[in-house]
Protein backbone atom coordinates (compact mmCIF):
# COMPACT_ATOMS: atom_id res chain seq x y z
CA UNK A 1 0.00 0.00 0.00
CA UNK A 2 1.29 3.46 -0.91
CA UNK A 3 0.15 6.47 1.10
CA UNK A 4 0.40 9.87 -0.58
CA UNK A 5 1.17 12.49 2.03
CA UNK A 6 2.33 16.07 2.47
CA UNK A 7 5.67 16.08 4.29
CA UNK A 8 6.79 18.72 6.74
CA UNK A 9 10.01 18.77 8.77
CA UNK A 10 10.85 20.58 12.01
CA UNK A 11 12.31 20.57 15.48
CA UNK A 12 11.49 18.16 18.29
CA UNK A 13 12.79 18.15 21.86
CA UNK A 14 14.67 14.86 21.35
CA UNK A 15 16.20 16.10 18.09
CA UNK A 16 17.41 19.20 19.95
CA UNK A 17 18.72 17.29 22.95
CA UNK A 18 20.90 15.10 20.71
CA UNK A 19 21.90 17.75 18.14
CA UNK A 20 25.48 18.04 19.44
CA UNK A 21 25.79 14.23 19.51
CA UNK A 22 24.99 13.29 15.93
CA UNK A 23 27.11 10.14 15.79
CA UNK A 24 24.98 8.60 18.54
CA UNK A 25 22.17 6.08 18.22
CA UNK A 26 20.09 8.47 20.36
CA UNK A 27 20.27 11.07 17.56
CA UNK A 28 19.29 8.50 14.94
CA UNK A 29 16.36 7.35 17.05
CA UNK A 30 15.28 10.98 17.58
CA UNK A 31 15.44 12.03 13.93
CA UNK A 32 15.25 9.01 11.59
CA UNK A 33 11.50 8.71 12.02
CA UNK A 34 8.28 9.69 10.30
CA UNK A 35 5.18 10.66 12.26
CA UNK A 36 1.68 9.86 10.93
CA UNK A 37 -1.67 9.74 12.66
CA UNK A 38 -3.16 6.35 13.59
CA UNK A 39 -5.64 6.44 10.70
CA UNK A 40 -2.84 6.81 8.14
CA UNK A 41 -0.78 4.17 9.92
CA UNK A 42 -3.82 1.88 9.64
CA UNK A 43 -3.98 2.54 5.89
CA UNK A 44 -0.34 1.46 5.55
CA UNK A 45 -1.15 -1.74 7.45
CA UNK A 46 2.01 -1.69 9.59
CA UNK A 47 2.77 -0.90 13.21
CA UNK A 48 4.66 2.05 14.75
CA UNK A 49 8.35 1.15 14.93
CA UNK A 50 8.28 -0.54 11.51
CA UNK A 51 10.47 0.73 8.69
CA UNK A 52 8.88 3.01 6.16
CA UNK A 53 10.20 4.21 2.81
CA UNK A 54 9.67 7.92 2.11
CA UNK A 55 10.04 8.95 -1.54
CA UNK A 56 9.73 12.42 -3.02
CA UNK A 57 10.72 13.93 -6.36
CA UNK A 58 14.00 14.88 -4.66
CA UNK A 59 15.14 11.61 -3.07
CA UNK A 60 14.30 8.66 -0.91
CA UNK A 61 15.03 7.56 2.65
CA UNK A 62 14.09 4.78 5.05
CA UNK A 63 13.02 5.77 8.57
CA UNK A 64 10.97 4.34 11.44
CA UNK A 65 7.25 4.91 11.69
CA UNK A 66 5.91 6.81 14.72
CA UNK A 67 2.37 7.63 15.75
CA UNK A 68 1.37 11.25 16.33
CA UNK A 69 -2.35 11.90 16.43
CA UNK A 70 -1.78 15.66 16.32
CA UNK A 71 -1.13 15.27 12.58
CA UNK A 72 -4.11 15.77 10.26
CA UNK A 73 -4.89 13.02 7.74
CA UNK A 74 -2.29 12.81 4.98
CA UNK A 75 0.41 14.75 6.84
CA UNK A 76 3.84 13.24 7.48
CA UNK A 77 6.38 14.84 9.84
CA UNK A 78 10.10 14.00 9.93
CA UNK A 79 12.30 15.81 12.50
CA UNK A 80 14.88 18.11 10.89
CA UNK A 81 18.20 16.44 10.18
CA UNK A 82 20.00 14.37 7.55
CA UNK A 83 17.22 11.79 7.10
CA UNK A 84 14.59 14.49 6.47
CA UNK A 85 16.98 16.39 4.21
CA UNK A 86 17.44 13.34 1.97
CA UNK A 87 13.92 14.04 0.63
CA UNK A 88 13.21 17.79 1.03
CA UNK A 89 12.85 20.17 -1.93
CA UNK A 90 16.18 21.97 -2.55
CA UNK A 91 14.55 24.82 -4.56
CA UNK A 92 15.14 28.11 -2.71
CA UNK A 93 12.37 29.87 -4.68
CA UNK A 94 14.56 32.90 -5.27
CA UNK A 95 14.89 33.80 -1.59
CA UNK A 96 17.58 31.46 -0.26
CA UNK A 97 15.31 29.13 1.71
CA UNK A 98 14.93 25.51 0.54
CA UNK A 99 11.53 23.78 0.78
CA UNK A 100 11.57 22.07 4.16
CA UNK A 101 7.77 21.97 4.44
CA UNK A 102 4.92 21.00 2.12
CA UNK A 103 6.64 18.34 -0.01
CA UNK A 104 4.57 15.69 -1.82
CA UNK A 105 5.72 12.30 -0.55
CA UNK A 106 4.92 8.64 -1.24
CA UNK A 107 5.11 6.39 1.82
CA UNK A 108 5.38 2.60 1.71
CA UNK A 109 6.22 -0.16 4.17
CA UNK A 110 9.70 -1.58 3.56
CA UNK A 111 12.07 -4.24 4.88
CA UNK A 112 15.11 -2.06 4.11
CA UNK A 113 17.18 -0.91 7.08
CA UNK A 114 17.46 2.65 8.35
CA UNK A 115 20.92 3.88 7.29
CA UNK A 116 23.23 5.21 10.01
CA UNK A 117 24.24 8.89 9.79
CA UNK A 118 27.65 7.90 8.34
CA UNK A 119 26.15 5.57 5.72
CA UNK A 120 23.49 8.13 4.80
CA UNK A 121 26.08 10.87 4.16
CA UNK A 122 28.32 8.34 2.36
CA UNK A 123 25.62 8.16 -0.35
CA UNK A 124 26.58 11.73 -1.31
CA UNK A 125 30.30 11.07 -1.74
Amino acid at each position, binding site marked *: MTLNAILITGRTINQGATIENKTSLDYQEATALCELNSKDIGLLGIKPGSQISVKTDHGDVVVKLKENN*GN*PDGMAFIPMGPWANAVVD*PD*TKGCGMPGFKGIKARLEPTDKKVLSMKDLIARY*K
Partner: protein
Amino acid sequence: MTVITDALCPFCGCLCDDLTIVVENNKITDIKNACKLGSAKIMGHHRIEAPMMRADKKSEFKEVSYEEAINEAAAILFKSKRPLLYGWASALCEVHKKGILLAEEVGAIIDNTATVCHAPSTLAVHEKGLPTATLGQIKNRSDVTVFWGSNPVHAHPRHMGRYSVFAKGFFQEKGRKGRKVIVVDVRKTETAAMADEFIQVQQGSDYLVISALRAILSGHADVVPESVGGVPKEQLAKLVDTLKAAKFGAVFFGMGLTQSISRYKNIDNAISLITELNAYTKYVITPMRGHYNVTGFGQVCSWETGFATAVDFARGAPYYNPGETAANDVLMRKETDAAMIIAGDAGAHFPADSVRQLARIPVIQIDPYWNPTTEVSNVVIPVAICGVEVAGTAYRMDGVSLQMRKMVEPTLPTDVEVLERITQRVRKLRGE
Protein backbone atom coordinates in the same frame (compact mmCIF):
# COMPACT_ATOMS: atom_id res chain seq x y z
CA MET B 1 33.82 22.89 43.93
CA THR B 2 32.66 26.13 42.28
CA VAL B 3 29.03 27.17 41.95
CA ILE B 4 28.26 29.64 39.16
CA THR B 5 24.91 31.37 39.52
CA ASP B 6 23.00 33.32 36.87
CA ALA B 7 24.88 31.58 34.08
CA LEU B 8 23.53 31.89 30.53
CA CYS B 9 22.42 28.94 28.44
CA PRO B 10 24.11 28.57 25.02
CA PHE B 11 21.37 26.57 23.32
CA CYS B 12 18.34 28.42 21.96
CA GLY B 13 17.36 32.04 21.32
CA CYS B 14 15.73 32.34 24.77
CA LEU B 15 19.24 32.74 26.28
CA CYS B 16 17.92 31.82 29.74
CA ASP B 17 20.10 33.67 32.25
CA ASP B 18 19.20 31.97 35.50
CA LEU B 19 21.21 28.74 35.36
CA THR B 20 23.22 27.43 38.29
CA ILE B 21 26.29 25.43 37.26
CA VAL B 22 28.35 23.28 39.60
CA VAL B 23 31.98 22.77 38.55
CA GLU B 24 34.41 20.27 40.09
CA ASN B 25 37.99 19.86 38.78
CA ASN B 26 37.16 21.87 35.62
CA LYS B 27 34.21 19.55 34.87
CA ILE B 28 30.54 20.50 35.03
CA THR B 29 28.86 18.09 37.44
CA ASP B 30 25.40 19.59 37.90
CA ILE B 31 23.05 22.10 36.30
CA LYS B 32 19.95 23.67 37.77
CA ASN B 33 17.13 25.48 35.91
CA ALA B 34 18.21 24.42 32.40
CA CYS B 35 15.75 22.62 30.11
CA LYS B 36 16.47 19.28 28.43
CA LEU B 37 18.08 21.06 25.45
CA GLY B 38 20.35 23.31 27.51
CA SER B 39 21.37 20.54 29.92
CA ALA B 40 22.31 18.20 27.06
CA LYS B 41 24.56 20.84 25.48
CA ILE B 42 26.19 22.10 28.68
CA MET B 43 26.86 18.62 30.10
CA GLY B 44 28.58 17.82 26.79
CA HIS B 45 29.26 14.75 24.70
CA HIS B 46 32.16 13.12 22.89
CA ARG B 47 34.41 15.81 21.48
CA ILE B 48 36.79 15.78 18.56
CA GLU B 49 40.08 15.76 20.44
CA ALA B 50 42.65 16.70 17.79
CA PRO B 51 42.78 18.29 14.32
CA MET B 52 42.35 15.81 11.45
CA MET B 53 42.97 15.83 7.70
CA ARG B 54 42.43 13.65 4.63
CA ALA B 55 42.81 14.26 0.89
CA ASP B 56 40.19 11.71 -0.21
CA LYS B 57 36.81 12.05 1.50
CA LYS B 58 36.23 8.30 1.33
CA SER B 59 39.41 7.59 3.31
CA GLU B 60 39.95 7.75 7.07
CA PHE B 61 41.13 10.93 8.79
CA LYS B 62 44.68 11.23 10.11
CA GLU B 63 45.41 13.30 13.21
CA VAL B 64 47.60 16.33 12.51
CA SER B 65 48.90 19.34 14.45
CA TYR B 66 46.93 22.59 14.70
CA GLU B 67 49.61 24.25 12.59
CA GLU B 68 49.24 21.73 9.76
CA ALA B 69 45.45 21.94 9.80
CA ILE B 70 45.44 25.75 9.92
CA ASN B 71 47.99 25.99 7.09
CA GLU B 72 45.94 23.61 4.94
CA ALA B 73 42.72 25.52 5.72
CA ALA B 74 44.41 28.77 4.68
CA ALA B 75 45.76 27.14 1.49
CA ILE B 76 42.26 25.91 0.53
CA LEU B 77 40.74 29.37 1.03
CA PHE B 78 43.64 31.08 -0.73
CA LYS B 79 43.27 28.84 -3.81
CA SER B 80 39.47 29.02 -3.95
CA LYS B 81 37.75 31.33 -6.45
CA ARG B 82 34.30 31.11 -4.84
CA PRO B 83 34.63 30.16 -1.16
CA LEU B 84 31.67 29.89 1.23
CA LEU B 85 32.07 30.56 4.96
CA TYR B 86 28.96 29.15 6.60
CA GLY B 87 27.56 28.46 10.07
CA TRP B 88 28.29 30.90 12.94
CA ALA B 89 25.09 30.48 15.00
CA SER B 90 26.71 28.50 17.83
CA ALA B 91 29.53 31.02 18.15
CA LEU B 92 29.90 34.36 19.93
CA CYS B 93 29.84 37.79 18.27
CA GLU B 94 33.61 38.12 18.76
CA VAL B 95 33.97 35.06 16.45
CA HIS B 96 31.58 36.57 13.88
CA LYS B 97 33.74 39.68 13.64
CA LYS B 98 36.85 37.62 12.82
CA GLY B 99 34.88 35.52 10.33
CA ILE B 100 33.56 38.53 8.44
CA LEU B 101 37.11 39.93 8.21
CA LEU B 102 38.35 36.61 6.78
CA ALA B 103 35.42 36.54 4.30
CA GLU B 104 36.37 40.01 3.09
CA GLU B 105 40.07 39.11 2.74
CA VAL B 106 39.43 35.92 0.70
CA GLY B 107 36.48 37.35 -1.29
CA ALA B 108 34.07 34.77 0.13
CA ILE B 109 30.34 34.51 0.57
CA ILE B 110 29.53 34.50 4.28
CA ASP B 111 26.18 33.11 5.37
CA ASN B 112 24.78 31.82 8.63
CA THR B 113 22.24 29.24 9.75
CA ALA B 114 19.41 31.77 9.45
CA THR B 115 19.52 30.82 5.78
CA VAL B 116 17.56 27.67 6.72
CA CYS B 117 15.70 29.37 9.57
CA HIS B 118 14.68 33.05 9.82
CA ALA B 119 16.49 34.69 6.88
CA PRO B 120 13.09 35.04 5.12
CA SER B 121 11.98 37.02 8.19
CA THR B 122 14.85 39.46 7.53
CA LEU B 123 13.64 39.87 3.93
CA ALA B 124 10.17 40.67 5.25
CA VAL B 125 11.60 43.18 7.74
CA HIS B 126 13.30 44.96 4.79
CA GLU B 127 9.83 45.38 3.27
CA LYS B 128 7.76 46.25 6.32
CA GLY B 129 9.92 46.95 9.39
CA LEU B 130 9.37 45.12 12.67
CA PRO B 131 6.99 46.39 15.37
CA THR B 132 8.51 44.46 18.25
CA ALA B 133 9.42 44.56 21.96
CA THR B 134 11.82 42.93 24.37
CA LEU B 135 10.78 39.69 26.02
CA GLY B 136 10.78 41.63 29.30
CA GLN B 137 8.07 43.99 28.01
CA ILE B 138 6.07 41.03 26.76
CA LYS B 139 6.40 39.25 30.11
CA ASN B 140 5.25 42.34 31.98
CA ARG B 141 2.43 43.42 29.67
CA SER B 142 1.04 40.92 27.17
CA ASP B 143 -2.48 39.60 27.71
CA VAL B 144 -2.81 37.87 24.33
CA THR B 145 0.00 35.59 23.13
CA VAL B 146 -0.07 34.02 19.66
CA PHE B 147 2.30 31.29 18.49
CA TRP B 148 2.07 31.01 14.69
CA GLY B 149 3.90 28.08 13.09
CA SER B 150 6.11 27.63 16.12
CA ASN B 151 6.20 24.95 18.80
CA PRO B 152 8.02 26.27 21.89
CA VAL B 153 7.23 23.16 23.96
CA HIS B 154 9.78 21.38 21.74
CA ALA B 155 12.03 24.13 20.40
CA HIS B 156 12.13 26.77 23.18
CA PRO B 157 11.02 24.83 26.27
CA ARG B 158 11.33 27.66 28.83
CA HIS B 159 9.96 30.48 26.65
CA MET B 160 6.40 30.11 27.91
CA GLY B 161 7.48 29.86 31.54
CA ARG B 162 9.91 32.76 31.50
CA TYR B 163 8.38 35.25 29.08
CA SER B 164 5.15 34.59 27.25
CA VAL B 165 2.51 32.37 28.88
CA PHE B 166 3.02 31.28 32.50
CA ALA B 167 5.36 34.09 33.56
CA LYS B 168 4.03 36.59 36.08
CA GLY B 169 4.85 40.18 35.09
CA PHE B 170 4.60 43.69 36.53
CA PHE B 171 1.21 44.31 34.90
CA GLN B 172 0.42 40.62 34.56
CA GLU B 173 0.35 39.39 38.12
CA LYS B 174 -1.91 36.45 37.30
CA GLY B 175 0.54 34.80 34.89
CA ARG B 176 -1.22 32.15 32.78
CA LYS B 177 -4.69 33.17 33.98
CA GLY B 178 -4.13 36.73 32.78
CA ARG B 179 -3.12 35.71 29.25
CA LYS B 180 -5.14 34.33 26.35
CA VAL B 181 -3.02 31.91 24.34
CA ILE B 182 -3.70 31.24 20.65
CA VAL B 183 -1.81 28.73 18.53
CA VAL B 184 -1.99 28.66 14.73
CA ASP B 185 -0.44 25.55 13.19
CA VAL B 186 -0.94 22.84 10.60
CA ARG B 187 -0.98 20.12 13.26
CA LYS B 188 -2.05 19.91 16.86
CA THR B 189 1.32 20.22 18.58
CA GLU B 190 1.93 19.99 22.33
CA THR B 191 1.96 23.80 22.34
CA ALA B 192 -1.45 23.82 20.60
CA ALA B 193 -2.78 21.40 23.21
CA MET B 194 -2.01 24.00 25.93
CA ALA B 195 -3.69 26.90 24.08
CA ASP B 196 -7.05 28.54 24.78
CA GLU B 197 -7.71 28.50 21.05
CA PHE B 198 -6.16 26.37 18.31
CA ILE B 199 -6.54 27.46 14.70
CA GLN B 200 -5.63 24.59 12.39
CA VAL B 201 -4.62 25.78 8.92
CA GLN B 202 -4.02 23.64 5.86
CA GLN B 203 -0.31 23.32 5.08
CA GLY B 204 0.84 26.21 2.87
CA SER B 205 -2.29 28.34 3.54
CA ASP B 206 -0.92 30.75 6.15
CA TYR B 207 -0.72 33.64 3.67
CA LEU B 208 -4.41 33.22 2.81
CA VAL B 209 -5.43 33.02 6.45
CA ILE B 210 -3.45 36.16 7.36
CA SER B 211 -5.01 37.98 4.38
CA ALA B 212 -8.49 36.94 5.55
CA LEU B 213 -7.77 38.23 9.07
CA ARG B 214 -6.60 41.56 7.59
CA ALA B 215 -9.76 41.80 5.47
CA ILE B 216 -12.02 41.15 8.48
CA LEU B 217 -10.04 43.59 10.64
CA SER B 218 -10.41 46.34 8.05
CA GLY B 219 -14.18 45.88 7.84
CA HIS B 220 -14.29 43.81 4.66
CA ALA B 221 -15.55 40.50 6.06
CA ASP B 222 -17.97 40.40 3.14
CA VAL B 223 -15.15 39.48 0.71
CA VAL B 224 -13.95 36.55 2.85
CA PRO B 225 -15.26 33.12 1.75
CA GLU B 226 -16.90 30.72 4.24
CA SER B 227 -13.64 28.85 4.75
CA VAL B 228 -10.05 30.02 4.22
CA GLY B 229 -7.12 27.58 4.33
CA GLY B 230 -9.31 25.09 6.15
CA VAL B 231 -10.39 27.62 8.82
CA PRO B 232 -14.11 28.53 9.04
CA LYS B 233 -14.83 32.25 8.53
CA GLU B 234 -16.66 32.28 11.87
CA GLN B 235 -13.49 31.18 13.69
CA LEU B 236 -11.45 33.83 11.87
CA ALA B 237 -13.95 36.56 12.84
CA LYS B 238 -13.81 35.40 16.47
CA LEU B 239 -10.01 35.47 16.34
CA VAL B 240 -10.02 39.06 15.08
CA ASP B 241 -12.30 40.03 18.00
CA THR B 242 -9.92 38.35 20.46
CA LEU B 243 -6.89 40.05 18.91
CA LYS B 244 -8.56 43.48 19.00
CA ALA B 245 -9.63 43.04 22.63
CA ALA B 246 -6.02 42.71 23.83
CA LYS B 247 -4.38 45.50 25.80
CA PHE B 248 -0.98 44.27 24.63
CA GLY B 249 -0.71 41.43 22.13
CA ALA B 250 2.45 39.49 21.28
CA VAL B 251 2.81 37.29 18.20
CA PHE B 252 5.68 34.79 18.00
CA PHE B 253 6.32 32.99 14.72
CA GLY B 254 8.53 30.16 13.56
CA MET B 255 9.44 27.91 10.67
CA GLY B 256 5.79 27.23 9.91
CA LEU B 257 5.83 30.64 8.22
CA THR B 258 9.45 30.97 7.00
CA GLN B 259 9.72 27.51 5.39
CA SER B 260 6.25 27.16 3.84
CA ILE B 261 5.50 27.90 0.21
CA SER B 262 5.21 31.71 0.43
CA ARG B 263 8.42 32.03 2.51
CA TYR B 264 9.12 35.69 3.38
CA LYS B 265 5.77 36.85 2.00
CA ASN B 266 4.07 35.04 4.92
CA ILE B 267 6.07 37.17 7.35
CA ASP B 268 5.54 40.31 5.26
CA ASN B 269 1.77 39.74 5.50
CA ALA B 270 1.95 38.93 9.23
CA ILE B 271 3.86 42.17 9.94
CA SER B 272 1.19 44.09 8.00
CA LEU B 273 -1.47 42.47 10.19
CA ILE B 274 0.44 43.57 13.30
CA THR B 275 0.83 47.12 11.95
CA GLU B 276 -2.92 47.26 11.30
CA LEU B 277 -3.77 45.86 14.75
CA ASN B 278 -1.76 48.75 16.19
CA ALA B 279 -4.52 51.07 14.93
CA TYR B 280 -6.74 49.48 17.63
CA THR B 281 -4.38 48.43 20.43
CA LYS B 282 -0.72 47.61 21.11
CA TYR B 283 0.77 44.66 19.17
CA VAL B 284 4.28 43.32 18.70
CA ILE B 285 5.76 40.46 16.66
CA THR B 286 8.94 38.49 17.36
CA PRO B 287 10.66 35.67 15.46
CA MET B 288 11.39 32.55 17.56
CA ARG B 289 15.12 32.40 16.82
CA GLY B 290 16.69 28.96 17.06
CA HIS B 291 20.39 28.91 17.93
CA TYR B 292 21.38 31.00 20.93
CA ASN B 293 23.41 33.50 18.89
CA VAL B 294 21.94 33.33 15.41
CA THR B 295 20.54 36.80 16.14
CA GLY B 296 24.05 37.97 17.05
CA PHE B 297 25.47 37.05 13.65
CA GLY B 298 22.77 39.18 11.99
CA GLN B 299 23.72 42.09 14.24
CA VAL B 300 27.49 41.86 13.69
CA CYS B 301 27.15 41.24 9.94
CA SER B 302 24.78 44.22 9.66
CA TRP B 303 27.12 46.65 11.40
CA GLU B 304 30.21 45.32 9.59
CA THR B 305 28.79 44.97 6.06
CA GLY B 306 25.38 46.66 5.98
CA PHE B 307 23.61 43.32 5.42
CA ALA B 308 22.41 40.66 7.87
CA THR B 309 23.66 37.53 6.10
CA ALA B 310 24.31 35.92 2.66
CA VAL B 311 26.95 38.59 1.98
CA ASP B 312 29.10 38.13 -1.12
CA PHE B 313 32.58 39.75 -1.04
CA ALA B 314 33.62 38.45 -4.50
CA ARG B 315 33.59 41.98 -5.96
CA GLY B 316 35.46 43.42 -2.98
CA ALA B 317 32.51 45.39 -1.63
CA PRO B 318 29.69 43.58 0.19
CA TYR B 319 26.77 42.48 -2.02
CA TYR B 320 23.59 40.82 -0.77
CA ASN B 321 20.82 39.07 -2.64
CA PRO B 322 19.36 35.93 -1.02
CA GLY B 323 18.13 33.70 -3.83
CA GLU B 324 21.47 34.39 -5.49
CA THR B 325 24.02 34.67 -2.66
CA ALA B 326 22.57 32.44 0.09
CA ALA B 327 24.50 29.27 0.95
CA ASN B 328 22.06 26.82 -0.67
CA ASP B 329 21.79 28.96 -3.82
CA VAL B 330 25.54 28.86 -4.49
CA LEU B 331 25.91 25.21 -3.50
CA MET B 332 22.98 24.13 -5.66
CA ARG B 333 24.40 26.07 -8.63
CA LYS B 334 27.72 24.30 -7.96
CA GLU B 335 29.47 27.69 -7.80
CA THR B 336 31.06 27.09 -4.41
CA ASP B 337 34.50 25.55 -4.94
CA ALA B 338 35.59 25.43 -1.27
CA ALA B 339 33.75 25.80 2.02
CA MET B 340 34.55 26.50 5.64
CA ILE B 341 31.77 25.32 7.96
CA ILE B 342 32.05 26.73 11.49
CA ALA B 343 29.62 26.58 14.44
CA GLY B 344 26.86 25.18 12.26
CA ASP B 345 26.20 21.87 10.52
CA ALA B 346 25.44 22.18 6.81
CA GLY B 347 25.92 18.43 6.40
CA ALA B 348 22.91 17.75 8.62
CA HIS B 349 20.70 20.71 7.83
CA PHE B 350 21.05 21.37 4.10
CA PRO B 351 19.12 19.48 1.40
CA ALA B 352 20.87 16.49 -0.19
CA ASP B 353 21.88 18.39 -3.35
CA SER B 354 23.80 20.97 -1.29
CA VAL B 355 25.55 18.24 0.71
CA ARG B 356 26.48 16.53 -2.59
CA GLN B 357 28.24 19.73 -3.66
CA LEU B 358 30.06 19.91 -0.31
CA ALA B 359 31.20 16.32 -0.93
CA ARG B 360 32.74 17.39 -4.27
CA ILE B 361 34.83 20.33 -3.00
CA PRO B 362 37.48 20.92 -0.29
CA VAL B 363 35.72 21.48 3.05
CA ILE B 364 37.18 22.83 6.29
CA GLN B 365 35.22 22.21 9.48
CA ILE B 366 35.75 24.17 12.70
CA ASP B 367 33.56 22.63 15.41
CA PRO B 368 33.79 20.87 18.77
CA TYR B 369 31.75 17.86 17.58
CA TRP B 370 31.77 15.11 14.95
CA ASN B 371 28.66 15.53 12.80
CA PRO B 372 27.52 15.02 9.17
CA THR B 373 29.68 17.98 8.07
CA THR B 374 32.73 16.07 9.39
CA GLU B 375 31.79 13.23 7.03
CA VAL B 376 32.24 15.50 3.98
CA SER B 377 35.25 17.45 5.33
CA ASN B 378 38.95 17.35 4.43
CA VAL B 379 40.28 19.44 7.32
CA VAL B 380 38.71 19.29 10.79
CA ILE B 381 39.77 21.75 13.50
CA PRO B 382 38.26 21.14 16.95
CA VAL B 383 37.70 24.19 19.16
CA ALA B 384 36.49 25.26 22.58
CA ILE B 385 32.72 25.54 23.12
CA CYS B 386 31.49 29.13 23.06
CA GLY B 387 29.24 29.95 25.99
CA VAL B 388 30.55 27.04 28.05
CA GLU B 389 34.34 27.38 27.80
CA VAL B 390 34.52 30.85 26.25
CA ALA B 391 32.91 34.08 27.47
CA GLY B 392 31.60 36.72 25.11
CA THR B 393 28.60 38.44 23.54
CA ALA B 394 25.39 36.84 22.34
CA TYR B 395 22.04 38.32 21.27
CA ARG B 396 18.74 36.96 22.55
CA MET B 397 15.89 36.44 20.05
CA ASP B 398 14.51 39.90 20.87
CA GLY B 399 17.81 41.62 20.01
CA VAL B 400 19.00 42.15 23.60
CA SER B 401 22.75 41.61 23.90
CA LEU B 402 23.96 39.57 26.86
CA GLN B 403 27.38 38.48 28.12
CA MET B 404 27.83 34.70 28.11
CA ARG B 405 29.87 33.45 31.06
CA LYS B 406 32.73 30.99 31.07
CA MET B 407 31.81 27.87 33.04
CA VAL B 408 35.03 25.86 32.68
CA GLU B 409 38.51 26.50 31.26
CA PRO B 410 38.94 25.45 27.61
CA THR B 411 41.33 22.64 26.76
CA LEU B 412 41.36 23.45 23.03
CA PRO B 413 41.99 26.71 21.10
CA THR B 414 39.05 29.08 20.66
CA ASP B 415 37.32 29.88 17.34
CA VAL B 416 38.82 33.40 17.53
CA GLU B 417 42.38 32.04 17.82
CA VAL B 418 41.87 29.60 14.93
CA LEU B 419 40.31 32.26 12.66
CA GLU B 420 43.09 34.75 13.46
CA ARG B 421 45.74 32.16 12.60
CA ILE B 422 43.99 31.20 9.33
CA THR B 423 43.72 34.90 8.37
CA GLN B 424 47.42 35.51 9.15
CA ARG B 425 48.40 32.47 7.07
CA VAL B 426 46.23 33.61 4.12
CA ARG B 427 48.00 37.00 4.25
CA LYS B 428 51.38 35.23 4.22
CA LEU B 429 50.37 33.13 1.19
CA ARG B 430 49.43 36.37 -0.57
CA GLY B 431 52.91 37.68 0.19
CA GLU B 432 51.76 40.41 2.58
